């Protein structure tokens, strides 16, 4: 049996495309969308998110038989918060400049609906290994979309990528101020949703 057919592999891969949390469910865009005007900040946030999603799913799955049903939401939030504190401390120590701008958003990873959603829908019912992969998959599926948005926003808004100037910028580049401002993120995400939904609708149409 190949990796793709195991429960964990299936969970990982379906989250990347077919059940991509952003395309299919429009979940959890809150905490990261605001930092998508710079690619570097986005990569850092997405790294933190994948770390938190994977490890909190693993922990919740390991503890799933010991958590009383009535307080499980609270316990899940606290487990997630503990991992976010690790991420926050790490970013504060390693990237103090970036932490000044994205500081509050790192804390908001706790309330990211994707992590909570995967914990509730998958990790609280499945064994540890598939849960870990499911969490990582959800985080990665989400990161792909956010990184794509950040790529376009930084390229069109600042003419840079990861802080480096694009080649031949003087000749062809014209600043789209809107991409730096919040509305740019809304429009980019709408385009992504349009693209994703149209693809799914077409696929459904082909099947019939």
């Amino acid at each position, binding site marked *: 049996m190949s990796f793709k057919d195991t429960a964990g592999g299936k969970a990982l891969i379906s989250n990347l495309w077919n059940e991509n949390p952003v395309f299919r469910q429009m979940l959890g865009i809150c905490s990261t969308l605001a930092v998508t005007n710079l690619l570097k900040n986005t990569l850092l946030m997405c790294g933190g998110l994948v770390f938190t999603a994977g490890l909190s799913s693993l922990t919740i799955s390991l503890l799933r038989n010991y958590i009383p049903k009535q307080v499980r*939401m609270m316990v899940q939030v606290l487990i997630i918060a503990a991992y976010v504190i690790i991420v926050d401390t790490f970013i504060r120590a390693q990237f103090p400049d970036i932490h000044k701008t994205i500081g509050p958003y790192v804390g908001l990873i706790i309330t990211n609906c994707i992590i909570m959603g995967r914990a509730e829908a998958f990790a609280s019912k499945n064994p540890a290994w598939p849960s870990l992969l499911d969490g990582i998959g959800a985080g990665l599926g989400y990161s792909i979309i956010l990184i794509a948005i950040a790529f376009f926003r930084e390229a069109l808004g600042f003419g840079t990528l990861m802080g480096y100037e694009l080649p031949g910028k003087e000749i062809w580049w014209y600043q789209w101020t*809107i991409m730096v401002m919040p*509305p740019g993120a809304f429009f980019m995400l709408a385009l992504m949703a349009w693209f994703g939904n149209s693809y799914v609708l077409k696929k459904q149409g082909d099947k019939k």
Partner: protein
Amino acid sequence: MILAALQPVVSEPNVLAHLLVIFLAAAFTENILLARFLGMCSFLAISRQMKTSVGLGFAVVFVTTFTAAINYLLHTYVMVPLDIVFLEYIVFIVVIAAFVQLVEMIIERFSPSLYFSLGIFLPLITVNCAILGVSLFMLNKQGFGFWESLIFGLGSGIGWLLAIVLMAGIREQIKEDKIPPGLRGAGITLIISGIIALAFVAFSGMIK
């Protein structure tokens, strides 16, 4: 010590104007939803109906105002003296969860119909990024005292209410319109949010 915090802002010559500026900035120029993308999940799902939008909006106003004030007091008078600031995420989340539980009981008692139509979204306020976001951004502001924090929480809540009510109004109007299939639902909502956000960018001239 706590009473000292409740003293009005004496350092400012014109207290009311000072608080009004904070309120307007929180509600318009730094709108928690349109400029910071917080609370998107419930925004996208709930804004389909006017009545539930207004209900959820007021619940958010209520919760942000009081949790901002409570969290400010806890942060300044408990966590800073004891040097346990790294626990702020966990403390904030617990305060918010307890408060949401309270609001839930109040709504259930006085308006059962609203309680049923809000359904799952009421407990989800706990993981609504906007609420935690307000508390985290409040700490990021320089020189905020108790009253400033309270007004900041109120302003942010009102800003969110304004955004979701505007959106619900527009969505009810376009319900029958012909929209490309891929854009239906989340896509068109995001585009409209982008346009509303553009309008809100214009408010930034209001506060220097």
